[in-house]
């Protein structure tokens, strides 16, 4: 199993499409949510490795709001998957430091390649942080 992924997409058909693509590629789809509120409620229980997030969702919050809230308390790579390409939305999205911004309609490989990259980059970042921490501890112990 390559990782646990949560899909946030209010169009059921599209969500199922993504689920098949991910499962074919060897990922586990931990859950599918239609709204940001539902996602935030269950996120801590699920502990996914990554989130594929639509921006326009059912409910009050949009995908960017959700990503901002998640970023404050957890370190989970978010990939946006949206039909929006306006400068304004892209700018708002950028501030949440996503790992990818995929435009709809997407190709199967858009999802696969971007997710693989995101997980790799995230892992590398974690290792880097770990290394720095270990180095600091070693320096401290040496004294």
């Amino acid at each position, binding site marked *: 199993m390559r990782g646990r992924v949560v899909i946030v997409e209010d*169009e059921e*058909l599209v969500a199922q499409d993504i689920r*098949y693509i991910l499962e074919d590629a060897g990922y586990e789809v931990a859950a599918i949510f239609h709204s940001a509120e539902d996602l935030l409620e269950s996120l801590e229980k699920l502990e996914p490795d990554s989130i594929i997030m639509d921006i*326009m969702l059912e409910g009050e919050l949009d995908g960017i709001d959700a990503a901002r809230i998640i970023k404050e308390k957890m370190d989970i790579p978010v990939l946006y998957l949206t*039909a929006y390409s306006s400068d304004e939305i892209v700018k708002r999205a950028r501030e949440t430091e996503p790992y990818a911004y995929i435009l*709809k*309609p*997407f*190709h199967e490989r858009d999802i696969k390649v971007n997710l693989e990259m995101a997980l790799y980059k995230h892992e590398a970042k974690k290792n880097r942080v770990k290394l720095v921490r270990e180095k600091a501890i070693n320096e401290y112990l040496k004294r």
Partner: protein
Amino acid sequence: MTCRILILEDVPLDVELMEREIRRAGIEFISETADNEEDFIRAIDEFRPDVILADHSLPSFDGLSALSIARERCPWVPFIFVSGKIGEEFAVEALKAGATDYVLKSNFSKVPIAIKRAIREIEKEQELERTRQSLIESNWQLREAQKIGRIGSWQWDIDSDTLSCSDEALRILGIPRDEFSGSIHEMVSRIHPDERRTFNESIRSLRPFEGEYRILRDDGSTSFVLLRAEVLRDSEGNPKSLIGIKQDITEDKRIRESLEASIREKEFLLSEIHHRVKNNLQLISSLLRLQSRYIEDERSLEIFMECQNRVKSIALVHEKLYGSGDMMVVNLAEYIEELLSELRNMCRGRDTVFRTELDEVKVGINTAVSIGLIVNELVTNAINHGIDSHGEVRITLSVSDGRGALVVADNGCGLPKDFEVSDSPGFGLKLVNFMLRRVNGLVVAENRDGAVFTVTFDAGGE
């Protein structure tokens, strides 16, 4: 012009002598004679004289009474006394009462001179009156025009530091005429505090200037005013005064703002529509992919994949439209580049090279969709049937005289001998033919070191 002369005289010989002198002096005239009050009055009303010649003493009437009647009934008609003898006292009295001139009967030759002089005076006065009337008229027109156009005029004399303003200029400033004392400070004090410095600097620079200012009126309202000024100079070229206009643009500004708001709204709605179109195309794409999972036949699967590519190529048009600014045109070169980068993914595991030479061509959405689908089919064909693992696909786009030309060429094995582009068994080329009809297009297929498709189309359509 024939001069109409009314003669008040009881001696026919004197009338004849007078008329002879007048005729001799070359004055064209007709005359009427009266020798009593009743005839005199009727002649004034009916004959309508241009000049009155009057003896000062008649048996039943006298010259001064005639003068006062004439002054009353036709004050503009010159009244000349022609008399046997006129004492100085009487002459003074007559002129005071409004007589134009007097001539002695001993000197009849002076009569035409007096007439000519009187008529000249009258003409001068009439000319003056006409000038005065037209001045009043154009003043009125100017004031009305300023009111209608909401443009006031102003002039600031530098030496005397005085400001003069037209009625409309004062209305724009919100200063009542009777409260205006002609100081530039009155104008400055009505300008918004944030903009006073700029205005003062503009005025003191003694150079032409133009700017938009907010005016605070006494009634608490704010208006937007365009101020514009030119410099008037004396003969030595020194600045003498600033002359300018102020235009109330509050209404224009309001209209402009509401237009801008409606344009923003339109853009928002358009981008919303593009968003929904793309979402629906995503739905179609997902639907095709979900169903394709139940297909085992290789050929059928390929058809589903091709359909997905077509959906994607249409979606890309909407992507490009959004980025185009006015959301109505697509940069065809950029669009084709992006399409090709999608199609490149079909060549995984092969050493295919794409060469492009694309001129900037801006087209409408329908043309873009048609050309996009044509490129999609021709390039897919080249990849799948034309070239082997080390092939090259060349795509060029150019435009001349409103006709676009698209060439898709490969260096593969070429087209089969009996190939007919308009009668192809495959759906791909059928689709190309359908799309060509939408853009008034033509396609030519030939072999030149590989298959070469040349498509020409109307680049100016929607």
